[in-house]
């Protein structure tokens, strides 16, 4: 089974598990199985359209996989998928940068 690495801030929604094993043929199916196994993580991972939220990135190995690519990115039993929160911020609200 493929493995999904859960980042520290989301582990309280996976019963403190740092990784979850999932089946599936694509990244999308793996993510949906994670949500099925650990439903509390859903609102922190997916938006209302069941797409990965803007401030969450999904990596397969070292490769950043966008929402558009998840349906077509295959996984195998040895695939490691990492959920990576985007860490950003700043002091001023009204900036276009």
């Amino acid at each position, binding site marked *: 089974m493929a493995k999904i690495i859960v980042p520290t801030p989301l582990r309280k929604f996976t019963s403190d598990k740092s990784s979850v094993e999932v089946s599936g043929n694509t990244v999308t199916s793996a993510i949906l199985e994670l949500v099925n196994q650990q439903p509390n993580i859903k609102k922190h991972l997916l938006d209302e359209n069941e797409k990965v939220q803007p401030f969450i990135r999904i990596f397969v190995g070292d490769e950043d996989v966008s929402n558009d690519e998840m349906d077509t990115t295959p996984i195998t039993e040895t695939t490691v998928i990492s959920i990576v929160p985007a*860490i950003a911020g700043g002091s001023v609200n009204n900036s276009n940068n």
Partner: protein
Amino acid sequence: MEQKINKLLLAFSAETTMIMINDATEIFPDECCGFMFGREEKGVRLISEVRSVTNQKEGDKRRRFEILPLDYMLAERYADESGLDLLGIYHSHPLHPAIPSEHDRVAAQPFFSYTILSVFPEEKTIIRSWRLNDNKLFEEEQILEVISKEN
């Protein structure tokens, strides 16, 4: 109205405080950023180690910071290998108060402590820390006295 989280308190080792302040003042007027590691015991987060990381924001680093996903993954790996927990992120607000902006809030993750250092030239650096509540709003954490290494 600001609200303290009484059930979750934060304490820094003296060394970690110095590292964060030095980072914030050396990188001024840009924003610094880094990871905070430690343990949570009896409702108190003890930050025993911090690791500075390069602000990779393209554009105005004086008002924005960004940490690369690879750096984040390395921080998680370091926590696993060192037996510590990745407990939060620190960054500086040059010439601004240590209060999270809306930009900070939108990007913030649950669980993490978000520690902000307010830096003004010739003034004492102010450190405050914040955490998202279940409504995705920041609430201020209470920072206990700095824990000296001897303790």
